[in-house]
């Protein structure tokens, strides 16, 4: 509005403009992009004009006009802006309010649902806020201010290095570094919004409030998501506090059991909690074997990362996800120098590697679950999501075109998901017999001989700097890694981190669950190495989105950049498959919710815990609730009410309705039992896991 007015004014003022019209048009677009930017621009222009004025004092006798016009334009813009703002505020609230769709809360309230069971929300990784309690001088004035999440991230741009330092943990212990205390923000504000306007739990909270939930029966179990799970108890008593809170809510709400709603990593955190609370002290919470049965009605896992996420692999290996890898290759120079001075990724990686919790998200269950060199449970998955119905035809064309693979029925094996990291496209496609055998011998060979750190680069940023060039190339020469060998790989490239983190997490499959070693807390967050507690009345829900391509395995290359302190590996995003292939930009995609593949989210509910198994001795009922992703139809909808993506699903009305029904007393059968869109049952059948 303002820009149009201004443009008209300019047209009016300048009568015979010919060449400048294009320039002004672009100007217009800029202006539409961001008003404030425009203001800054004009301010800068102002400065430019001053310079101009100094340079050419004689040419224009009345050159002060430039300056004046600048001021005039700024003043004009400001006035118009204020005027519009004033009008905007004068409007009655209802006129401007986007007609919001009535959420499920309103409808269910009309149906007569009321708050019954207390609800505990368990946030996932990254979404929880962190605030500063004690810091270095560079973080002056940030006491009890958010360093992460919640408010704006302005501080990150103001003093990036300082922030990174404060968000990092101690590399050896995985706890606070000396003189720095960063703590989780408690309460519902801890994770309702991640950034202004970017909701995480807020929509769910608002809908729950409609049927009568409030502070006394709604609790956010905020914890420091950077720590390993047991360390949250050691440092902050987070597990004890959660236990006490659940007991209090159980008693003060008339002995109604609690419905827990964990999200993402919160799912395995809560799994850890369930084991911890029944284990005798000092390692556990001493709640006794009946605690879960007595206090918990249902665990409604949203987007559960039960068996890990492949994203964690790329994150730890080279600090990049799908989105980041593009930036890294295209804007290498800009991005590296812009925010953090130099070496953005290296610093980010250095920080992320001090967080134990990321290791908890590495794929669990090895080749049995995630597939080996030539086989994966998802095989036959068709990636062309938009044209699912036409997939048959495209498959046949693929068949014709593809000459690399001889056997026709293996066409679908183009997506060799089992090889979670492969170096080069051929390594990801060729049959395993044609590849050099990969085993951990390589690592033992190189690591012993060449672990003399070459500190020529000065201070070591990441553990990559302690590796020699030779061993870095050796790693790449091994071509392809499955989830099992991947762990060896990580142990090799990040020895200290894995040593630290593997004291807290385990990624295997238990042979014999009665082995006393499984009483150790490092196994508690791995569903394949723990038994569920003895609570036959409890219910477990796996609720997740499907229908979005999700990172499943990666094609890597050696980074061409060989200078000091750089990450030697990089996702090869020049690698693309043909149309309809699951390979795009160096990443193989499978079905999932953009972060967690269906396999990880659904397998335990579909098979591992279904019925009475060795992982679920008391036969706790499990339900799979899948939500097909539908992108928002219009801008008004914001992030969509039928979204299935990892975080946006928290605003999915169907999911919210399910949670509310269960919270107000319904059982899994009453809300409709399983609701499956993906091939999770078929996939689980292919997995050969002893139950």
């Amino acid at each position, binding site marked *: 509005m303002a820009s149009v007015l201004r443009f008209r004014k300019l047209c009016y*003022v*300048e*009568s*015979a*403009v*010919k*060449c*400048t019209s294009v*320039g002004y048009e*672009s*100007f217009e677009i*800029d202006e539409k*992009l*961001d008003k404030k*930017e*425009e*203001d*800054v*621009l004009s*301010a800068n222009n*102002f400065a*430019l004009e001053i310079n101009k004025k100094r340079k050419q004092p004689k040419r224009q006798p*009345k050159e002060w*006009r430039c300056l004046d*016009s600048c*001021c*005039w*334009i*700024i*003043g*004009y*813009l*400001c*006035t118009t802006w204020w005027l519009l703002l004033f009008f905007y505020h004068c409007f009655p609230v209802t006129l401007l*309010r986007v007609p919001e769709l009535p959420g499920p809360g309103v409808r269910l309230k009309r149906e007569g649902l009321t708050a019954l069971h207390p609800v505990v929300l368990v946030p996932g990784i990254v979404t929880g806020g962190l605030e500063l*309690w*004690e810091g270095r001088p560079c973080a*002056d*004035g940030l*006491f*009890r201010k958010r360093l992460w999440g919640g408010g704006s991230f302005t501080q990150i741009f103001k003093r990036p290095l300082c922030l990174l330092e404060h968000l990092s943990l101690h590399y050896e212990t995985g706890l606070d570094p000396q003189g720095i205390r960063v703590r*989780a923000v*408690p*309460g*519902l*504000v801890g994770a*309702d919004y991640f950034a202004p306007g970017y909701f995480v739990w807020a929509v769910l*909270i*608002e809908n729950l*409030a409609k049927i009568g939930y*409030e*502070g*006394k029966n709604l609790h956010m179990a905020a914890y420091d998501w950077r720590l390993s799970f047991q360390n949250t108890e050691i440092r*902050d*008593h987070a597990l004890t*506090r959660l236990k*006490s809170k659940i*007991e*209090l809510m159980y008693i*003060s709400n008339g002995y109604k059991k609690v419905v827990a709603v964990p999200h993402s990593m919160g799912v395995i955190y809560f799994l850890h909690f369930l084991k911890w609370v029944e284990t005798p002290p000092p390692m556990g919470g001493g709640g006794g074997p009946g605690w879960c049965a007595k206090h918990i009605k249902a665990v409604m896992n949203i987007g559960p990362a039960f068996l890990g996420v492949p994203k964690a692999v790329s994150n730890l290996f080279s600090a990049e996800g799908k989105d980041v890898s593009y930036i890294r290759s295209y804007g290498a120079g800009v991005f590296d120098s812009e925010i953090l001075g130099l070496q953005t990724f290296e610093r980010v990686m250095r920080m992320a590697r001090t967080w134990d919790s990321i290791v908890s998200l590495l794929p669990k269950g090895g080749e049995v679950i995630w597939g080996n060199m030539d086989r994966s449970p998802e095989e036959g998955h068709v990636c062309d999501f938009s044209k699912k119905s036409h997939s048959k035809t495209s498959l046949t064309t693929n068949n014709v075109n593809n000459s690399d693979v001889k056997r026709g029925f293996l066409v679908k094996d183009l997506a060799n998901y089992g090889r979670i990291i492969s170096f080069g496209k051929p390594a990801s496609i060729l049959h395993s017999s044609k590849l050099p055998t990969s085993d951990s011998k390589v690592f033992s060979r190189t690591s012993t001989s060449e672990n003399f750190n070459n500190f020529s680069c000065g201070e070591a940023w990441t553990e990559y700097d302690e590796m020699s060039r030779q061993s870095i190339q050796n790693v790449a020469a091994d071509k392809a890694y499955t989830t099992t060998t991947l762990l060896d790989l990580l142990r090799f490239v990040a020895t200290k981190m894995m040593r630290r983190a593997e004291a807290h997490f385990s990624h295997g499959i238990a042979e014999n669950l009665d082995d006393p070693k499984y009483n150790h807390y490092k196994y508690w967050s791995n569903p394949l190495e723990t038994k569920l507690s003895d609570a036959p009345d409890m219910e477990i829900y796996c609720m997740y989105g499907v229908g979005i391509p999700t990172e499943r395995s990666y094609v890597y290359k050696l980074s061409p950049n060989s200078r000091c302190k750089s990450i030697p590996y990089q996702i090869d995003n020049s690698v693309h498959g043909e149309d309809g292939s699951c390979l795009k930009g160096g990443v193989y995609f499978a079905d999932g919710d953009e972060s967690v593949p269906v396999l990880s989210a659904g397998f335990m509910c579909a098979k591992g815990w279904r019925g009475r198994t060795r992982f679920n001795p008391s036969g706790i009922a499990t339900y799979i609730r899948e939500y097909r992703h539908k992108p928002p139809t219009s801008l008004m909808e914001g992030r969509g009410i039928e979204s299935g993506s990892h975080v946006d699903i928290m605003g999915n009305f169907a999911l919210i309705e399910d949670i509310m029904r269960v919270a107000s007393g319904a059982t899994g059968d009453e809300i409709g039992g399983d609701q499956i869109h993906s091939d999770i049952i078929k996939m689980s059948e292919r997995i050969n896991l002893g139950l």
Partner: protein
Amino acid sequence: MSFLRRRKGTDSSKSQNLRCNIVKEDEKNNLYESPRKESYNSKKWSCWDSCCWFIGFVCSVWWFLLLLYNTMPASIPQYVTEAITGPLTDPPGVKLRKEGLTVNHPVVFVPGIVTGGLELWEGHQCAEGLFRKRLWGGSFGELYKRPLCWAQHMSLDNETGLDPPGIRVRPVSGLVAADYFAAGYFVWAVLIANLAQIGYEEKTMYMAAYDWRLSFQNTEVRDQTLSRIKSNIELMVATNGGKKVVVIPHSMGVLYFLHFMKWVEAPPPMGGGGGSEWCAKHIKAVMNIGGPFLGVPKSVSGLFSVEARDIAIARTFAPGFLDKDVFGLQTFQHLMRMTRTWDSTVSMIPKGGETIWGGLDWSPEGSSFNCGAKTLRNNSINNTDQIPNINLANMKNVNYGRIISFGKDVAEAHSSKIERVDLLDSMKADMLANLTNCDIWIEYHDIGDHRIKAAADYKVYTAGSILDLLHFVSPKLMARGGAHFSYGIADNLDDPKYQHYKYWSNPLETKLPDAPDMEIYSMYGVGIPTERAYVYKVTTATDCSIPFQIDTSVEGGSEDSCLKGGVFSADGDETVPVLSAGLMAAKGWRGKTRFNPSGIPTYIREYSHAPPANLLEGRGTQSGAHVDIMGNFALIEDIIRVAAGATGKELGGDHVYSDIFKWAERINLQL
């Protein structure tokens, strides 16, 4: 980004298309000249455009300065401050950290009335979009945007004292609930920051936020707040290796915590069922800050006519302006209607009646407080002079005992000279309430003019008879309040009726728990004139307004008089008189008394008020005012030392400036 693009664009246009560029330049000149030409013709430039120019200029300069400010390293302002005021003293947290103090006992904060934040969980149509936004505390932006809606949501149900249907307003939880009351106006924040210096954090600090509008027992009934506090204290003791907690209540939180200590040991269903040893096991010390143990006179004027000294002046000088300002019309009526639904205000009515607060011709303070406050307390008194001498207004005794009097002459005359109509008789006289047509309902309109006059004819009210007056003018509130609070003095504390929760928050009607190792501190500011008694008048404009008003025209004879603007002041912290804050620790609980059967040691820590030396100090580091004292370095240091393990004796025991012990002697309270 666009800036870059733009510049690039102009550069390229310069280099590539020279001709066009030249034309452009010319046109630019035209552009700048043409408006001038026009303006010279039509006089447009001179007015409208120079306006724009001016605004633009101011904006640019502003942005430029802002840019400079933001790029300036953070140490400069501090450097400037130090250059002006000399090196800053270390805040107590830093100082004590250097001494080697570390986190020891967990700390519980109990905020007072008004300072805690409240947020909306369910509301009417008009409060749309305010879900989980603060209605109270924070910026108060909504108060100005939709005042009537705001007042409606802040009110409670006038019958039950709980939520009205369809509205749920709940306390904010966590430390954020009361760290800042409004932006920049700290309450607990300074204390929290200093405790954090020696290692405290979320797991060792707990803000016992509660809905301060409710009566104390109702916070448990509605929100289970007391259970939550109990559970949290137990949790903190368990997770911190069995270290007992140090509780720090402020203002009304003092009474609330007194209630809690009785509640937690009482058997369910009325109590928390913690058993008789709960306090002894879990609490190391209760450090009451500015505690109105025996009530505050301010609450009387608040209930009676919604005014305290500050508001009273505003109400007389700008009656039209203030009334129209916020609520459209009748600000005070709306405020009164809202505050009268808050049961908690009743908890702070002066307790103990005439025994404590003084009778018609007697008060414990006598004239010992020099209200001029410039000279030190040097007027020695040996005996309270019972005969008022009106001519010697300068040195006369102040009749603090008459909490409300109608007219100055009445306030100063001897009791025998005052003619009074019996209140009860006049109440019965005219029960026909004339129904007024006022839009806003307040209970005054049910009363009727006749009875208002009768109330004024009674002339003088003491702390005992003030209750009758309040019952008379706001029967519903007092009926509700009477079920939750009591204001008397117990004759026999073993009477089973004192098991009821309504007595728990009155220190004169409860026994302290059996916890001889616990310590009780009374910490409060002194040296500020504090409202103690009022002179009222009946307003003339009666139709739809509040019929009573503080008579601000009444002044004492001289500069040093304690009577100013219709208010008698005594020593205190601006809100709570010393008498209320200190008497229990000085006398009622000192040693083994019937109120303190296990002999819990008590300590009085007074902090003499010193206003901030300059503007840079903000609200002062030596303030004694009711809320500002939370930033008093000496008080913070005391708290940190106790939290880190010191006992009251190690702190230095009592620390008294006022005459509280002298006054305590004068009070004839059976112990």
